[in-house]
């Protein structure tokens, strides 16, 4: 009768720390192209502290996680007008130190495997807005989603 109780105690000792780990991702700052003009492309680089997009990640040191963006092809504006968005191979950056000045570039169009050195990290995102020469004036918006799978 004493042996089964010991087994139960051991199992809880192993499983509780895993369940208590805190992981997560938070959207911190939107990707803002600001004022643009018809026919004039606007680029926001991922190192732009005011206009680049930012997500903050939380995990345990040494953890790995896959980062997968869901990127819109267009922003939507007045009366259903759309504005083309382009994301390039160098437009995303992972910073294990959460410093915008210390990023490892990656392609946001494909999943990226990140490794945490501490328990917090950040992902930065730039991109290009391409308004057409006949782009309707007004405000345009879209949604960028980052899915993080922690291992």
């Amino acid at each position, binding site marked *: 009768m004493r042996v089964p109780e010991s087994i139960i105690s051991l199992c809880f000792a192993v*499983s509780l720390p895993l369940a208590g780990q805190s992981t997560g991702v938070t959207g911190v700052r939107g990707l803002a192209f600001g004022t643009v003009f018809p026919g004039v492309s606007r680029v926001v680089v991922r190192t732009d502290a005011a206009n680049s997009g930012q997500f903050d990640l939380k995990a345990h040191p040494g953890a790995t996680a896959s980062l997968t963006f869901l990127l819109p092809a267009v922003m939507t504006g007045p009366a259903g007008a759309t504005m083309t968005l382009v994301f390039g191979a160098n437009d995303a950056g992972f910073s294990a130190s959460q410093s915008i000045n210390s990023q490892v570039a990656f392609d946001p169009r494909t999943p990226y495997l990140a490794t945490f050195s501490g328990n917090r990290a950040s992902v930065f995102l730039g991109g290009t807005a391409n308004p057409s020469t006949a782009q309707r004036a007004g405000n345009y918006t879209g949604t960028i989603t980052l899915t993080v799978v922690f291992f």
Partner: protein
Amino acid sequence: MYTATKVAVLALALVAAGAATAQAQNNASINVTAAVQQPITVVAATNLDFGNVFPGVVKGITLASPAAGRFSVTGQASTPVSMTFVVPANLTSGLNNLPIAFSASWNGINDPAGSGFTPSAGATAATLSGTGTLFVFVGGTVTPSVGQVAGAYTGTVQMTVVY
């Protein structure tokens, strides 16, 4: 023995649950935004025309005169802009000069009774109307000398408008 078996199954279930929590998926979203502004268009609508002038007789064109110059501007409604001018100090006819000074006003509607300013004084702030229009009126004074050589004198007033 029966009890021991049940506990072992429970133990395996707990281990399996622990393994499941080791992989977690999280999502978060941010917005991507842009604001498209109407480009500015400037049209030189009317030339500033002094007509005939005579040596030694100063002639002025008021802003309200049909002979005043006028620029028409369109752009983003209710938006501030900055206007700068390049104006000549003289009208010219060949190598001959005719001194000129300018006055101006701007208005959201086509009415010269707007806000007065001096074009040569540097950048001037203005605001496009609620329908995105701006009108700039240009008058001036020419001062022919008593020995002014007869001829057709011309010059160019250039206006630049930016947000």
